[in-house]
């Protein structure tokens, strides 16, 4: 799975989650916007974390060197 595919998955999850909050607790436009902001922030945070770790391992400059014992 490449970078873009997983990013797409994150986007889809984000959209599903915001739809869920919209459907499950629909409490007026301002509250809905608040929920949407929460979901987007959370999704962006999670995606950033994953993307950083993924990118860092894409083209490794150092490789794992096993310890002597193993």
């Amino acid at each position, binding site marked *: *799975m*490449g970078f873009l595919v*997983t990013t797409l998955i994150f986007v889809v999850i984000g959209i599903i989650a915001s739809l869920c909050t919209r459907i499950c607790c629909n409490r007026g*436009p*301002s*509250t809905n*916007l*608040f929920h949407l*902001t*929460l979901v987007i*922030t*959370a999704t962006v*945070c*999670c995606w*950033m*974390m*994953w993307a*950083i*770790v*993924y*990118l*860092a*391992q*894409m*083209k*490794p*400059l*150092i*490789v*794992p*060197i*096993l*310890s*002597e014992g*193993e």
Partner: protein
Amino acid sequence: MGEVRAGGGGGCCPPMNLFRSESMQLVQLIIPMESAHVTVSYLGDLGLLQFKDLNADKSPFQRTYAAQIKKSGEMARRLRFFKDQMLKAGFSPKKSATQADINIDDLEVKLAELETELVEINANGGKLQRAYNELVEYKLVLQKASEFFHSALNSAAEQQSENASRQIGEESLDTPLLLEQEMSTDSSKQVKLGFITGLVPRQKSMAFERILFRATRGNVFLREAVVEDPVTDPISGEKVEKNVFVVFYSGERAKNKILKICEAFGANRYPFSEDLNKQDHMVTEVSGRLSELKTTIDVGLLQRDNLLQTIGDQFEQWEFLVRKEKSIYHTLNMLSLDVTKKCLVAEGWSPVFATKLIQDALQRASFDSNSQVGAIFQILQTKELPPTYFRTNKFTSPFQEIVDAYGVAKYQEANPTVYTIVTFPFLFAVMFGDWGHGICLLLATLYLIIREKKFSSQKLGDIMEMMFGGRYCILMMALFSIYTGLIYNEFFSVPFELFAPSAYACRDLSCRDSTTMGLIKVRDTYPFGVDPVWHGSRSELPFLNSLKMKMSILLGVAQMNLGIILSYCNAKFFRNGVNVWFQFIPQIIFLNSLFGYLSLLILVKWSTGSQADLYHVMIYMFLSPTDDLGENQLFPGQKTLQLALLLLALVAVPWMLIPKPFILKKQHQDRHRGHSYTPLESSEDNFQLGANHDSHDHEEFEFSEVFVHQLIHTIEFVLGSVSNTASYLRLWALSLAHSELSSVFYDKLLMLAWGYNNVIILIVGIIVFICATVGVLLVMETLSAFLHALRLHWVEFQNKFYEGDGYKFYPFSFAWTGDEDE
């Protein structure tokens, strides 16, 4: 930023819940005197109006309702007295099931009656108890003293008989001739020996003896007997260890002295007679009276208990009623009396959405109090800054409290809570990434959430209260910890190949190189999180350090950019163009041309796999920007870009510093000039308004002050962007410490114990491992990660946009009078 436009929905963001504090209005209520009490009571039930103190210059005694406050204070005192009595008697006030409607005046009479009754019962009980204790002491004296006399009598009789036998047997020349005479005269001439019996505290008995001896020059004879069990002292009512004493003396003067000494030592004296018959008689009498008193006291106690029981049944309700009454009168005292003395005028803040509710409450009140005139509700125009009011729920309130602990938001400024709800637990989790620990945290907080109803009704300890209040915050922290734990691939520091096989493998079949040259990447990158093969490898630390350090920078730059964007939202909302052009734009340019560029470099380096040294690039970007980059070049045109960015950053600093003070000065002058030329209007209303306006606007504009302020602001931002970025490295440090500690605990406790192949050692090892995990990782580490996340939000995030100099909205409400009075 001084201007506030109430109710404006402008700005980049549409009105969002919690993003802006509720729009408030200053309202004036004119309440007829006769319905004032009911009105305030209804408003208190509603809890959406914060009364302003209109009598701030009056002392509490000069106010209108001082007498009523005194009365309710007296009632509160009575209730406290009952509570003390109940505590002493071991009752606890119960929640009364029946909510009997009771008038406050009736309650006052009832409380007074109950108090006199209780005081009387207590006084009688005290008297009886004292008499009882005296009798107990008397009985002891009778017992002990009779023992003395009995033994003394015996020995005397022995001696006498001995003497007699000697007289008979040894009547010789040696016998003094006058012996007979002596003995016979003895009884008639004998000095009458008096004696005093009583009880003295054992601690004082030595001193007592010494003083007696000195005062009478040795002419006393003291006998003491220890009373084994402590005796209740009739006067103090405490248990004291005592001795029974008998003092023999001769002469009236000695007696007086001894009496005084007894008094000084708190020795209680009791009459005692030598006559054996009388003694017996006394003992039986005292015993009889004792049992009589005992039953009387028991009946008295029972009566008191019954009384306290009836009080306890309704205590909570009464207490609530009295508190309510007191707070109503306190509020009424804040209202100013109309000139005609027929109405009270109230002013206060209320949220705009509450207008209808307040009007309803006013109508109901005037209806219920049969008032002929209804209360008048009107909205006042004011330049004063309204209080800040966020409508939070049990989920958002802990996060709002985190923000409020730093400073209450200025009226309607952007509320960081909206983002804090996610970013706070997220940054916490970056430092606390371990899904095993996350699950432990999740279970603990789920317990709190499931038993929410039970916990919220009972009183918890300080720490427990805090945990319970922040349960949803902890829930978010736990969920994000599980997520970051999966990313870090750590379950109690153990990695799992959950998502795919590791991307690395040996170079050849023999795997000889794996400990020297290392493995090579044979598959696609591990799709989710850190490749499990890194764990325990020799290059684990260099790899993770580099990764986490860069991650901290990236996350930090992102969050700081969010903060600056929020400052744009604020400027837009308050229609403050100066702040957009001369604060927001140069700030975002400055931050991104330095640290945004660094983030870009990091990303480019990762995606190209370049060997360039980023420190070198960043440092020489300042030191010699025109030099060739050489092997550190990551992409073509980098040098030009760097030069451009450097120039932008250099331009941004004076851009931030210089124009704003001058523009502010010009704005002030314009306003001033315009103002002085406006024609005066004759209408009185306008005149008043104008006067108000004048006094407000005539604030001196100190250019130097504004300039210095801007200078400080600029320096703070420029230096801050460097130090704040560095400050985000704490994410790396804490996360490193967490993973190292947990792997040490796992390897050195659990694996070591496992290696012994011994059940007992294994069990001990597991216990120690659990204790260390819970104590160090789940408690200490949670706390430290929490504090660091707190700091990152308060300082690094909020100083980009948050003024936090508002004041909180405290509506008058009965819901929280409960705890605050205490």
